[in-house]
């Protein structure tokens, strides 16, 4: 029977090609979107869950009284104390992350190895690496060992066997021997490693005390617990150890937490989102909802077209019933048709996914690599597709098989009113979702434009920045002078950070108002030289900027306006002020507020000092209209000063652009899905309009004979749909207003959600819908009325 059902369904689809194309195409497109989102969610949820010991590996976070941000920074000295005193700890694996470290090859060539990680040997227990060469347990045991990823090994050594090869870290002058090669890391981990070096080598990077220091909070600690050990007591022990080492007093709370590895990706309490690739779980929910909605829109087409074609199918139902068919048999026949169509749609969906994956991966930022490689995934997706077919086909199956044969064989289809109302409701639903997605997209685009158009408080154009190499760092003044002698270079400054990338906080103290007792406050801090003000284009509000004099080094302070305000300083210039580790100094000036981190945050207090020895960033202002020449000149000076290094520079405005990555991604994806939703919904009303026009053929003929114009008839036929789409917009607009206002609340500098966005979205949806149904309406209205009347 089942085989017969499918054979019949196939014949039916062949005969009704237009209907089949709309259904299969629409559902296939909906499934493709849904599949992409499912793959994306699956990928996100798999983050760092694949490590063999993931269930007992944790990231340690510690909050101290003077620095309350939750981040992965811990002192290196804590690990050995924890391993000694905390029960249940198998390893505490310390990690220091150094971005792009250059290495010198035996032939003298300097190459880049990507991110370098200093890590304790236990890292192979915390994380699962696939060793292609070398032994996991011994590769990092020797302090001069190095483990490379496959790609880095290939870049450095080509096809030669990398094991036993030597290389030198140029900045540290540290010779290493390759002891292992691991497969490149998959996309679903927050680890970003090009080369692993034993943590024991840390003193070469951070001084002789680094391994035991309790004050240098620059290292991550991953804790691997013994089987069955609870994380809470270990975290408490870590907090107690930190409190004791820093001699915090009672009431000064130290909070420590062990954060499970598999959920780290969604741990939004962690402030350093980039390092741990933290994703807001709400984004996943949002995409899951979009997937479900798009699939529903596609299912609605299926349901609507099937019930709208009831007239065509009713006779068949009547005949079959008169031949002795039971309702169950008819239902299963209709469901077979739905399943067959969804099977074709699944194929369309898979093809769509394969075609869209490169673009989708790109939109997700390139680090994600979704793919259709697992059989389980394919089967799961196919089940979703068949499920959609069943859901979409069940109402029509129940509806169509309810017809009384005696009536339908007489041509009486009078009890179709319920289905017509449902159909209208479903069209409203489709367009409401589409309009909602469009409004959301336009809001994100609008907010992006708003952020990009903000006055950032500094002159961001024509300024490039790059990191000083050790050679440049050691000969900074000479390098600066060489650059300044170039015709296209207007200014050169050194600093510890540039607008858009200032991420350093420190504690400052000053005599509080009315008392001599010092008030302490954590504040963002920046080190900058005397040329920073003009090179970056900041403006002074009061006092002066740093001069190249001994007096201004270390103990002179420039604050931003927010710092002055929040610290409650009156007449700040000349006020006594000091960093927590310095003797008292003086505030010499105040700069106007400028955006030095991100537009998501309000401007925070910033304290600027001048300490030549810690400034590794270089900013160069190029003359307007001479950027290309300027870049060539700077590159030439750079190559001369640091031979063998790549000149890796950024424009200052790129620092901010990089911060909009999430919003750019969101607007791209939302825009894509909104477009698909509108397209599928239009496909549906295109089909419905054709059916309606066919059904009203005689009416149209009569009206034409009575003198109705083509415009009258087109307006009559298209008007019904336009009214539904307008109603959908009325439903969607307030919901979108609520949702997007909540989204905008996440920005310190948010655009106003004005009528423009709504007008554009509403107008767009209406126009597209009108164009879609007008083609059908026009065709019906221009048909020869005589033929229509004769055929009736």
């Amino acid at each position, binding site marked *: *029977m089942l085989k*017969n059902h499918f054979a*019949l369904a196939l*014949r*039916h689809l062949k*005969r009704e090609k237009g209907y089949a194309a709309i259904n299969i195409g629409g559902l296939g497109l909906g499934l493709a979107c849904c599949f992409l989102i499912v793959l994306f969610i699956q990928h996100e949820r798999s983050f760092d869950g694949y490590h063999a010991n993931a269930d007992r590996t944790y990231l340690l976070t510690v909050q101290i009284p003077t620095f309350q941000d939750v981040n992965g920074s811990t002192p290196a000295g804590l690990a050995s104390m924890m391993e000694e005193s905390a029960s249940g700890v198998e390893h505490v694996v310390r990690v220091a992350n150094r971005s792009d470290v250059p290495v010198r090859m035996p032939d003298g060539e300097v190459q880049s190895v990507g991110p370098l990680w200093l890590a304790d040997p236990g890292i192979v227990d915390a994380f699962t690496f696939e060793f292609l060469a070398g032994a996991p347990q011994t590769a990092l045991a020797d302090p001069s060992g190095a483990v490379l990823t496959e790609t880095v090994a290939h870049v450095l050594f080509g096809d030669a066997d990398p094991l036993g090869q030597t290389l030198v870290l140029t900045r540290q002058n540290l010779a290493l021997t390759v002891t292992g090669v691991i497969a490149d890391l998959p996309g679903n981990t927050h680890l970003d490693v090009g080369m692993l070096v034993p943590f024991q080598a840390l003193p070469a990077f951070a001084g002789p005390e680094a391994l035991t220091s309790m004050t240098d909070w620059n290292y991550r600690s991953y804790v691997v617990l013994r089987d069955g050990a609870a994380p809470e007591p270990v975290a408490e022990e870590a907090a107690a150890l930190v409190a004791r080492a820093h001699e915090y007093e009672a009431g000064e709370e130290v909070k420590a937490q062990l954060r499970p590895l598999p959920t780290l990706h969604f741990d939004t309490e962690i402030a350093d989102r980039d390092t741990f690739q933290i994703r807001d779980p709400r984004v996943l929910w949002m995409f899951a909802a979009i997937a479900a909605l798009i699939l529903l829109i596609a299912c609605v087409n299926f349901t609507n077209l099937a019930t709208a074609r009831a007239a065509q199918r009713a*006779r*068949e139902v*009547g*005949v*079959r*019933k*008169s*031949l*002795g*068919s*039971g309702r169950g*048999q008819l239902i299963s026949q209709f469901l077979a048709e739905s399943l067959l169509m969804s099977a074709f749609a699944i194929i369309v969906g898979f093809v769509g996914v394969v075609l869209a994956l490169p673009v989708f991966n790109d939109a997700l930022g390139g680090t994600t690599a979704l793919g259709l490689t697992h059989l389980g995934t394919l089967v799961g997706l196919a089940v979703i597709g068949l499920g959609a077919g069943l859901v979409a086909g069940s109402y029509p199956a129940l509806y169509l098989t309810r017809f*009384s*044969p*005696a009536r339908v*064989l*007489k041509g009486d289809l009078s009890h179709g009113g319920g289905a017509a109302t449902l159909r209208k409701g479903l069209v409203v639903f489709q367009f409401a979702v589409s309009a909602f997605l469009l409004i959301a997209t336009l809001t994100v685009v609008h907010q992006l434009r708003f952020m990009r158009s903000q006055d950032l408080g500094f002159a961001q154009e024509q300024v490039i920045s790059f990191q000083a190499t050790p050679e440049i760092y050691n000969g900074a003044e000479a390098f600066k002078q060489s650059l300044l002698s170039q015709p296209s270079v207007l200014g050169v400054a050194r600093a510890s950070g540039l607008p858009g990338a200032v991420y350093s906080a420190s504690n400052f103290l000053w005599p509080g108002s009315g008392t001599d007792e010092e008030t302490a406050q954590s504040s963002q801090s920046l080190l900058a030289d005397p040329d920073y003000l003009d090179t970056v284009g900041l403006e002074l509000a009061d006092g002066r900027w740093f001069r190249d004099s001994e007096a201004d080094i270390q103990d002179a302070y420039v604050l931003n306006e927010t710092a002055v305000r929040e610290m409650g300083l009156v007449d700040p210039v000349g006020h006594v002020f000091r960093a927590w580790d310095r003797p008292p100094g003086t505030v010499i000036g105040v700069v106007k507020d400028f955006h030095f981190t991100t537009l998501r945050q309000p401007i925070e207090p910033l304290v600027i000092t001048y300490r030549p020895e810690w400034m590794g960033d270089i900013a160069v202002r190029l003359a307007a209209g001479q950027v290309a020449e300027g870049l060539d000149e700077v590159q030439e000076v750079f190559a001369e000063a640091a031979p063998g290094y790549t000149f890796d520079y950024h424009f200052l405005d790129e620092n901010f652009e990089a911060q909009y990555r999430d919003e750019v991604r969101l607007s791209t994806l939302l825009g894509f899905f909104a477009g698909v939703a509108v397209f599928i919904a239009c496909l549906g009303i295109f089909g419905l309009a054709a059916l309606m026009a066919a059904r009203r053929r005689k009416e149209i003929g009569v009206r034409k004979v009575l003198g109705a114009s083509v415009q009258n008839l087109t307006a009559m036929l298209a008007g019904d749909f336009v009214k539904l789409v307008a109603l959908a917009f009325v439903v969607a607009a307030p919901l979108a207003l609520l949702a997007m206002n909540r989204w905008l609340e996440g920005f310190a500098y948010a655009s106003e959600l004005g009528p423009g966005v709504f007008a554009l979205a509403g107008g767009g949806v209406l126009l597209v819908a009108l164009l879609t149904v007008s083609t059908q309406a026009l065709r019906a209205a221009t048909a020869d009325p005589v033929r229509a009347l004769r055929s009736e």
Partner: protein
Amino acid sequence: MTPLLHLRDITYAYRTRRGDPPVLQGVDLDVAPGAFVTVIGPSGSGKTTLLNVIGLLDRATSGTYTFDGRDVGAMKERERATLAREAIAFVFQAYHLLDDLSIAENIAEPLRYQKVPADERRQRVADVLDRFGLAAKADRYPGELSGGQQQLVGVARALAGRPRLLLADEPTGNLHSSQGEAVVGALRELNERDGVTVLHVTHSERWAADGGRVVEVLDGRIVADSEA
């Protein structure tokens, strides 16, 4: 002899707010097994409704209806469906063949619902096709046949299920007279050779003159019942 059909005081009314008169009012009818009854009457007189009630496509509003001594009104829906599937077949004015099925498949469809095994099904379809001279067209689709041929397929389909009662509702209404002759001839042969009881509804008195019993319906009542 127990009549095959026994109808007493059958009324059929649509539930409308306008208070339309019933379509059937107090119909009494007995039909013996193997009879050929021609039901005549003008359009709208209630012939088709009577046929639908007899064929179990519709339920009478009131009255008694027994089929071969079994009270149809007391049957559950499932029993009615089984009885209809196994004992009753229809031939319609508009042929009502299934467009997606070939001629052979159309004829086989009621057998499928009767769960006749595939081998027997094939045999019975082949027999019927032979009998109606349709064997050469077995794989054609309804749209490829003339109206008369389609109606012959309709009769063949009705016969394949080996019904005891065949209800033909204006089977010649859409046909030229020569095609009509062939179809009614087929019905008569079915009645005489196979012993199938036939109720032939028509608004044309032409077929009433062919002999057998003629029942005339007007305004929902039987106004004449005679042997021609």
